[in-house]
């Protein structure tokens, strides 16, 4: 069968120098469901953004029905017959389904919006493809599953022939997922090309006809789904290239600092994101958490660091339940946190390096006399830390916003590693920073461990997590799927299997994550 859509040698380099796509090749046929699989940051989303006209490729061609296309905006893409269902629905809550579906291509009668015709268009489309939606319902009253159907109908009404679904099942219940798959298969049989982006290999296997695997911005290959197993796809997706070779002695763990017991978290939509998770982090060890994004790590870390509430179970820091503590109390109890997004949660960009580093310690009598702050003591200590943490800057007075990403991260690390903490939660501590800075941060983490702190490390960088962690927890669909007390015995292939849910450990083995 001939190719309906071809993306040829597509390259995208972002302004910050990150090569998101490096000569990627992708093609899809008419009437197939084609999966794109890859780790976080492999470049799937960038590729789809280029196809939908949100980003423009620096090199390469996009060919649809044999014709080269230049897609400069979503409008161009829609005209070319491409529809996209975004992870976050693009809907107006107070408007009706019919109004949302026809927005942008509104049927009119003079200047008047023709509601009857909009309803008719929506109904016709729903009937044609077997969707059961009330066109007159308001979006805000609908469940997530129905909202997603609205999103698909929205694309279909505009005459889309290529439908991109970006991790559509992430927000759905199993029943809704099953229903969605039936409808997607119907769509395929009526001639629509569907591009299905997912981490969930069982779903890819069940739904798709072919799969393209992307790793680190490059195409690894294309396979017919019946020729590959889930284990094969996992092997193509996951791979650790370099051993970071961080010098460190074997850990010497002592008593528990953080104890998480039967933790269960529901998100706002009532979906279970963390499912009965128990583990502990001891003084003098680095516990790594690995997992494909969206498997509950985010919600769990937000609960541990006080950024979000949790529903059931308990989290104890230094023996104290954290449920009703605010972040100030949490920090006093002994939490330090390097947040995932340093620019939003990690620092105040419009304040100086000095102010950022001292922010969590300002209540210390050493730095204030009850009324005025002690500028001299602050200057002395922060200057010392700026030197110690190798922050490249003119002086401590410089605004954090003027620093490079790596140096901003060093400021955050300087503050968190000098705070009076027992547990340090490091959430993607080296994401998007240069190699030198990353190495520095990693060495510091080992130093902190040796100084007797408990460290919880979350990282999407598998090389990092495998070389830093003393023991490792793997999360999959909200549960701990595997626990490795000794990381040396773990192969990267095995890690991939557990992360993607191809393999599961016994409950007994998993229970080992909680030390009494």
């Amino acid at each position, binding site marked *: 069968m001939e190719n309906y859509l071809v993306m040829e040698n597509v390259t995208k380099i972002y302004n910050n120098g990150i090569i998101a796509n490096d000569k990627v090749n992708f093609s899809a046929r008419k009437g197939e469901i084609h999966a794109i699989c890859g780790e976080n940051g492999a470049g799937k989303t960038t590729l789809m953004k280029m196809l939908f006209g949100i980003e423009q490729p620096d090199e390469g061609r996009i060919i649809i029905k044999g014709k080269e296309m230049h897609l400069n905006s979503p409008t161009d893409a*829609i005209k070319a017959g491409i529809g996209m269902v975004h992870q976050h629905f*693009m*809907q107006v809550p107070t408007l009706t389904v019919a109004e949302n579906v026809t*927005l942008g291509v509104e049927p009119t009668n003079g200047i*008047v919006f023709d509601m009857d015709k909009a309803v008719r268009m929506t109904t016709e489309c729903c009937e044609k493809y077997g969707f059961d939606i009330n066109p007159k319902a308001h979006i805000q009253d609908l469940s997530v599953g129905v909202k997603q159907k609205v999103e698909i109908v929205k694309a279909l009404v505009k005459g889309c022939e290529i439908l991109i679904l970006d991790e559509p099942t992430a927000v759905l219940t199993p029943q809704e997922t099953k229903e969605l798959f039936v409808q997607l298969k119907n769509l395929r049989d009526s001639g629509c090309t569907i591009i299905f982006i997912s981490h969930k290999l069982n779903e890819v296997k069940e739904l798709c006809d072919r799969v393209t695997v992307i790793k680190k911005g490059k195409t690894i290959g294309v396979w017919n789904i019946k020729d590959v197993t889930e284990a094969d796809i996992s092997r193509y997706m996951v791979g650790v290239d370099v051993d970071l070779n961080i010098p460190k002695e074997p850990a010497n763990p002592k008593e528990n600092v953080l104890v998480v017991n039967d933790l269960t978290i*529901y998100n706002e939509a*009532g979906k279970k994101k963390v499912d009965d998770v128990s583990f502990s982090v001891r003084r003098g060890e680095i516990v790594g958490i690995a997992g494909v994004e969206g498997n509950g790590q985010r919600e769990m870390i937000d609960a541990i660091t006080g950024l979000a509430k949790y529903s059931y179970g308990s989290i104890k820091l230094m023996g104290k339940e954290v449920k009703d503590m605010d972040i100030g109390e949490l920090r006093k109890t002994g939490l330090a946190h390097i947040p995932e997004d340093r620019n939003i949660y990690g620092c105040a960009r419009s304040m100086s390096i000095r102010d950022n580093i001292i922010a969590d310690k300002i209540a210390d009598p050493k730095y204030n006399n009850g009324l005025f702050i002690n500028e001299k003591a602050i200057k002395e200590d922060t200057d010392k830390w700026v030197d110690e943490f190798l922050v490249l800057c003119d002086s401590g007075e410089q605004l954090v916003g003027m620093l490079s990403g790596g140096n901003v991260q060093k400021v955050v690390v300087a503050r968190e590693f000098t705070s009076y903490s027992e547990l340090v939660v490091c959430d993607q501590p080296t994401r998007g920073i240069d190699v030198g800075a990353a190495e520095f941060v990693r060495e510091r983490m080992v130093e902190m461990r040796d100084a007797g702190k408990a460290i919880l490390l979350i990282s999407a960088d598998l090389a990092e997590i495998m070389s830093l962690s003393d023991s490792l927890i793997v999360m999959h669909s909200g549960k701990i799927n595997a626990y490795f007390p000794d990381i040396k015995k773990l192969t990267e292939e095995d890690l991939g299997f557990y992360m993607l849910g191809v393999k599961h450990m016994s409950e007994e083995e998993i229970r080992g994550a909680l030390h009494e």
Partner: protein
Amino acid sequence: MGLLTEIFNTISKVIVLPTFYYMIIMSAAPILLAALACAIALKANAINMGTEGIMTISSLVAVLVSSAVGGSAAGGPWLGLVAAIIVGAILGFLVSVFAFRLKIDIILVGIAMNLIGTGASVFLMYVLTGDRTTTTSLSSGTLPQVSIPLLKSIPVLGEILSGHYILTYVAYILVFVMSFLLFKTKLGLRIRAVGENEDAAESVGISSLQIKTIALIISGALGGLAGAFMSECYLAYFSSGLIAGRGFVGLAACNMGAGNPGIICLCCLAFGIFYAFSNFATLSNLSIYALNALPYAVVLIGVVLYSIYTRNKELKRLQGLESEEKSETGSVAHN
């Protein structure tokens, strides 16, 4: 006690007068125009704080243009009205340029517009007429009053509803026009979509910049109309302090009505009662200054009550959600 009795006496004297009700309708009209100006901008999520300033400048422009062409005899007020609307629309467009193209915070742009309105109008008046306070030296005239056949001969009702300035009727008609525009037309749908979820509108190829600009131009034009009302209906001249916060009262009414023209109209009529009341100071021994301050005090109280009301409503909604969630998660856990 004496004060309460005095207030009661005044009220009982005033509420039997048909002119009182006539005054309510008339006093509410300019506030209504200002509120509608704010409403269309609010619906597009492009809050137009500068309505007061736009009203000030356009009310002066109306007078200047009218007298320049020769006042009432030469149809000056009509030309003045057109000029005020055009100037208002241009000022609305300027707000959009500053806010969306030059990326200045839209609230700050609105405040700047108000300050410019006060300063520029006095300066312009002084340069052109040599007078710093009013333009009474110019004969700019007023727009016509309309007596409605049949209605005018009905006792009481005729006195209240007939004989208003033409712009008063226009203001109330615009309530329906605005409802139609916002809720029945394609443009209105797009304005509401952009106002509520800009990304959603952009993702289907609607330019939010274009929609917001259109909304602000319409908003400015309505502000111009409100300005012309003040200097060509309410009074026959421009004076500094003529608008006297009506743009802000309109903004308050707009927010209390959440941008919905019908509710906005009711809010404006409620404020109109107190504006009208302050016109009957001579019937009362109450301080004229207190009476003049009354409408603003009422707006303040109204806004506070309204915000308490919406906060309670929101709290109730959240509580409802929470209990719903609890029962839901409970059942999920059970499964």
